[in-house]
């Protein structure tokens, strides 16, 4: 009970710090850093809290699959956005290719 509450509080801390980071940081690349890391770690700790609270194997498999999905997809999207920002292809109609 207590350990799952601690994991939930840590996850909420990461969500709040990620949201605060995309409002307070000055640079688009540092905003990408804050948003991607905060959301991935927040959902990871939230899934850990729910796994610790439930203790059911069928639900645990689904939670781990969801965590695997997010921990693969979210850094891929952040990396694509960073390459889009770093190469300067952010015109209104898309790149001139």
């Amino acid at each position, binding site marked *: 009970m207590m350990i799952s509450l601690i994991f939930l509080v840590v*996850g909420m801390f990461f969500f709040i710090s*990620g949201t605060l980071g995309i409002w307070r940081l000055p640079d688009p690349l540092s905003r*990408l850093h804050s948003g991607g890391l905060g959301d991935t770690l927040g959902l990871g700790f939230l*899934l850990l809290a*729910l796994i610790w609270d439930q203790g059911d194997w069928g639900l645990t498999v689904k939670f781990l699959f969801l965590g695997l999905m997010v921990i693969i997809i979210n850094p891929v999207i952040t990396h694509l956005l960073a390459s*889009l920002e770093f190469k300067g292809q952010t015109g209104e109609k898309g790149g001139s290719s």
Partner: protein
Amino acid sequence: MFAIGVELGIWVLLISAAAAMGRAFTGPAISDRLLAINMVTTKLVATFLLLAWQEGNWVYLDVALVFVLAASVATVAIIKYFQQGRLL
């Protein structure tokens, strides 16, 4: 004790999703807007999980899985459009 944490967590997630949506409306760069939409998606998935715990109905977990897959495919398609100037 954990129920109070889940109740507070739902409100924290909804407020921070609204804040990220405001960044999506007023972001100066395109990557800011797309990152903010991705953050709203992740926060809504976390909200689905906490609501599923609160109501004791784990059908919402399957909803969260399908939501993650559909939203990630949509975001990657929009990023590819801005990289190449055309879809596909």
